[in-house]
């Protein structure tokens, strides 16, 4: 059951990739990147539940933290308005 959930989550990572690829402005891409980070953290948490390794949850938490940090930093960089 969780394997199916993981596969569906993996497939659900495609739309943000599309937005990242196609999004005209920087902020479309940032929304796609933030959504992609979230989905990768979810897949990590699901795999932690599937395989029973509790350590993967720490990885998911660290990944979510750095994904959030990166998104906010790039957003602050975008505020300067070179684009």
């Amino acid at each position: 059951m969780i394997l199916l959930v993981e596969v569906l989550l993996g497939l659900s990572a495609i739309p943000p990739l599309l937005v990242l690829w196609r999004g005209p402005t920087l902020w479309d891409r940032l929304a796609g990147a933030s959504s992609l980070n979230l989905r990768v953290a979810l897949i990590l948490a699901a795999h932690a539940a599937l395989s029973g390794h509790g350590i993967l949850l720490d990885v998911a938490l660290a990944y979510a933290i750095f994904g959030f940090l990166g998104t906010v930093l790039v957003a602050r960089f975008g505020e300067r308005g070179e684009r």
Partner: protein
Amino acid sequence: MIGEILLSLSLALVWLGGVGMVRFRAPYCRLQVAGVADIGGAVLFLTGLIVYSGWHVTGGLMIALILFLLFTGPLATHAIAKSAFVVGVRD
């Protein structure tokens, strides 16, 4: 049983977030979808994981992950929207 329901509901939410993100053209609509549907789906998904796989596997760390996502998800979308607004994106 409840775990499966929660997991499938959250998968539907996450999938709707993805479809909505592709469907809307404007940056702000995508931000709204990314903020609302994804964070809601993620929190529901993690609670479903706790219910499904039991407390011993996930433990308090899953609660930390849920709380972290609850706080920083809207923060991230706010930062993006603010930077878009400051630069002058008015679609």
